[in-house]
């Protein structure tokens, strides 16, 4: 038998399709696909860092200017840069989740994925994992630049930073799940939602100003959003060196609810797309 003939005889050795190992393997396969995609385009890689870097520069210079005024709030060490960086964690993580999902639709690959042994929750877990990896690629260089250019060290937030990060990323996944579900059901016509949903939170979760600025009737709405507690907490640490951990527990509890709602919404829209037969018609 020649080597060429031997090659023809290679049978696939199929691993068991059920269990945690199988799930992890499929998630790893998807994350690998996303890494391939990012590696295939230098422009994408640069773009990941470009926008957060511009944001940081703009707000950093504004902070520097305000620091020369008599306003004690503006003089707070890096409050604005801190706000921008934390907001970008939420925004970039949400965009990472949503655009990676939309990418499957642009490339008309969703039909292949959804007929493979990949479960919907594995797809969601892979998207979530990938959004964190993307976030690292995009935010770590920007945070380092903020330190060298403006002397702002994000790590000054201490252990609270890790908690802030968790709250913001969990919120971003909830938003990502809702937009992915809507896009599944209504197609790429609803793509704009993926970009704009996070901005709906911008005025409500008090990124750049304290909750007390909002009218009384709007404050409970703001406090029902997990990121509000992060931004309030950050200001409290940077301006007064104090922090109430209860705030974080409250935020994490809210996140659990939002995440459950996000996954239920995604599952419902996926089921609805199966009923309406739109899964095969997705694509550019």
């Amino acid at each position, binding site marked *: 038998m020649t080597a060429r003939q031997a090659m023809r005889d290679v*049978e696939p050795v199929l*691993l068991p399709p059920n269990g945690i190992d199988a799930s992890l393997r499929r998630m790893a396969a998807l994350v690998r696909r996303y890494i*391939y995609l990012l590696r295939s385009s230098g422009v994408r890689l640069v773009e990941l860092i470009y926008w957060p870097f511009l944001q940081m520069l703009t707000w950093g210079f504004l902070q520097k200017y305000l620091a020369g005024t008599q306003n004690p709030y503006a003089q707070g060490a890096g409050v604005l840069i801190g706000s921008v960086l934390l907001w970008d964690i939420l925004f970039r993580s949400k965009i990472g989740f949503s655009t990676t999902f939309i990418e499957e639709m642009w490339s008309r690959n969703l*039909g292949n994925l959804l*007929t493979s042994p990949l479960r919907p929750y594995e797809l969601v877990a892979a998207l979530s994992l990938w959004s964190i990896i993307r976030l690292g690629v995009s935010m770590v260089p920007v945070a380092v630049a903020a330190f060298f250019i403006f002397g702002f060290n994000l790590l000054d937030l201490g252990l609270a930073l890790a908690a802030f990060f968790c709250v913001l990323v969990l919120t971003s996944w909830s938003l990502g799940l809702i937009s992915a579900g809507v896009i599944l059901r209504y197609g790429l016509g609803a793509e704009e939602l993926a970009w704009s949903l996070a901005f709906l939170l911008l005025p409500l979760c008090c990124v750049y100003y304290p909750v007390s600025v909002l009218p009384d009737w709007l404050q409970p709405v703001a406090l029902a959003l997990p990121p509000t507690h992060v931004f309030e907490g950050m200001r409290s640490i940077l301006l007064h060196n104090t922090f109430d951990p209860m705030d974080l527990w409250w935020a994490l509890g809210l996140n659990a609810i939002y995440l459950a709602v996000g996954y239920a919404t995604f599952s419902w829209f996926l089921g609805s797309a199966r009923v309406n037969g739109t899964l095969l018609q997705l694509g550019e």
Partner: protein
Amino acid sequence: MSHNSDKAGAQRKAMDETTGSFRKELGASPDAASPPVAVRDLTKRYGSVTAVDHISFTIEAGTTVALLGGNGAGKTTTIAMLLGLIMPSAGEVRVFGADMSRNRYDVAQRLNFQSPYVDLPARLTVEQNLTVYAGLYGIANAAERIACVSEHLQIDTLLDRPTGKLSAGQKTRVGLAKALLNAPELLLLDEPTASLDPDTADWIRHKLKDYARSRNATLLLASHNMAEVERLADRVILLQAGRIIEDETPKALIASYGGETLEDVFLDVVRGRCKPEEAEPEQARRAS
């Protein structure tokens, strides 16, 4: 030679053991007495439009069945329901005994599909795409299997090229490579040679036939390419307006319509002409 045979034997044994163990995991081995495909009273409605209308059929292991019909006859919808991509409005789809509406994942590793309605990501190279799908289908020996399938489908020289830069024929072969990676027992094909030149289309048909014969695999293909159906199918299910109007071997179908080719039959059906035996009483009735 013995070394290669041993290696192939060991691989087969490993596969049998692995496959056996996970079939035990599934419990009551749904495939033991179940045909690869069993469809009962399957219906799909979109509002007031009925795309598939109470169809029932069974496909035995090792056969190649073609769903034939004009545009909008319900072929793609039927295949999509078999894959679990579309939920039926009524009726039941069972694949290897598993209800596809509820237990699709019990059998997902044993089937695969190719369709012109889906693509592989254009920016990834062919090899990257196949590697990702080998991971999704749980193929332990991914590199060797990809090399084998690629060589078989003559895409081994394309492995480093971005999938989006391939010609239509090359893309079809890559899509087929993805569909054959897990050596599916049931292969669903929607218009497998659509938009291909006759030479490439013929080559693909030849490969599909080889695959089905060598593995006793079951093929279900949706097509309105008569030559393709005549060449590949053991049995033809003719659909019109979502209903099964014929379910025969190609030869029997041609004979019953008194035509020479399946294309004659198809034209008779879509233009509303009856079979000769049905036409005679009709003519007598009109004459009287």
